């Protein structure tokens, strides 16, 4: 089998006396979606920040394509985040530039990746807006005039336009209405399959994890308490915490 795209080895990070991460290890392989689930405060978002180089662990290391990201240097890491990596924030306002038009938000990332031809950038922006089901007629509107679901789809277009290999997603459906969530999840599912993306998906939504992820990792108080094939972890949970988590989901 292929080598992992991203690996974490023994990540530990404490805020004061509170452990946010305790000896967390994982591998993400090309083309797979790995969900990280657990309740608020379990360390999920901290893990995502450490994996994407936005926070440094006190112990352990993160390897991207076999290279320690701590040894890469700021500039190289920023370059990765602009090109091969993408980061989808829970709040689209954290991932968008609210003073720039919808089309500009998508085009800007292409320009940062080195594309210069204005017509080509605008055509790509138009294509990506359509792909995330935003009417291209709205490409000159500011994101502030969009609904929450549209803003989130715009953030996804902005992230994916450069065809990243690895996308970090932090509760991408977090603040949205249930009907909007379903549409967004289906959109993400289709894009992940079409583009062959590798995704680290942080979510507290078990149904979202089931829909999108091949493997799942359950966190509690900074530790990974269980991991495996998504269906197995959800149908045959072993750890008391996973059993509690799974049994707490309302069947629809």
């Amino acid at each position, binding site marked *: *089998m292929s080598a992992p795209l991203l690996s974490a080895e023994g990540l530990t990070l404490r805020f004061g006396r509170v452990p946010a991460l305790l000896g967390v290890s994982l591998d993400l*392989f090309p083309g*797979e979606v790995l969900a990280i689930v657990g309740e608020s405060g379990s360390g999920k978002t901290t893990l995502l920040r450490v994996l994407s180089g936005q926070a440094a662990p006190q112990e352990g290391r993160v390897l991207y394509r076999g290279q320690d990201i701590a040894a890469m240097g700021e500039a190289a890491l920023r370059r990765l985040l602009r090109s091969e990596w993408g980061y989808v924030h829970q709040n689209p306002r954290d991932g968008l530039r609210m003073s720039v038009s919808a089309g500009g938000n998508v085009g800007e990332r292409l320009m940062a990746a080195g594309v210069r031809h204005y017509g080509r950038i605008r055509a790509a922006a138009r294509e990506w807006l359509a792909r995330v089901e935003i009417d291209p007629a709205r490409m000159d509107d500011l994101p502030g005039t969009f609904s929450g679901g549209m803003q989130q789809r715009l953030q996804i277009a902005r992230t994916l336009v450069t065809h990243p290999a690895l996308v970090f997603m932090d509760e991408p459906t977090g603040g949205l209405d249930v009907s909007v969530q*379903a*549409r967004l*999840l*289906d959109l993400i*599912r289709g894009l992940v399959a079409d583009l062959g993306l590798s995704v680290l998906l942080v979510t507290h939504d078990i149904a979202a994890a089931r*829909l999108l992820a*091949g*493997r799942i990792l359950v966190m509690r108080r900074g530790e990974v308490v269980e*991991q*495996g*094939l998504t*269906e*197995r972890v959800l*149908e*045959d949970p*072993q*750890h*008391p915490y996973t*059993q*509690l988590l799974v*049994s707490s989901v309302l069947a629809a």
Partner: protein
Amino acid sequence: MTGAAEWRLRVEALDKTFTLHLQGGLRIPVLRGESLVVHAGECVALSGPSGAGKSTLLRCLAGTYGAGGGRILVRDPAGAVTDLAAADARTVAALRRNVIGYVSQFLRVIPRVPALDIVAEPMIARGMPKEAAREAAAVLMRRLNLPDRLHRLPPATFSGGEQQRVNLARGFGAGHPILLLDEPTASLDAGNRAVVIGLIAEAKARGAAIVGIFHDAEVRDAVADRHHPIRPLPDAA
């Protein structure tokens, strides 16, 4: 090589116990020392009273449940043998994509995904080009009396029988060398039962090894080469 078909699935001394941590750690043993061999082209019907563990065994064979002990040896068409009971998540996922097909009792409906795409998905995952897979899916759905007007709709609003037929088309379409069938005809009428009997016969003819739970005696008698009884275990003390 002799003329006898080779085994595809070999279960050895399989144990499965559920531990319910939310019920004070209650342990429910379901399978103990279960053994079973299934050859290419053979259909084995699991028999036994309700609650004996037939579905549990099927789900262990599908990788949905983890085995507590023993081995589940799977031989792929190239001859490679893998112990599903000890395999890591990615190996299990690869086996389910390429070797083991599972028709569960109920379809898991995904919002907004059309029935045709649900049926075509496992074929595409096994490497069939998209358009060919969608064409094959449509043919299979018509055979299961799912008219074209339903193909583009998500099955959420379908009847139980229609959903089951979508599930069957999904399970049979990709031509997996091992097929696991959990009551495939439970909510079907006589005409559709006959279609399923035909699909099972064709799968056997192409060499699939099949394990199934068939409550319908007519279907069971038509497809099963032998029965494998599952006996309920006494409750743990």
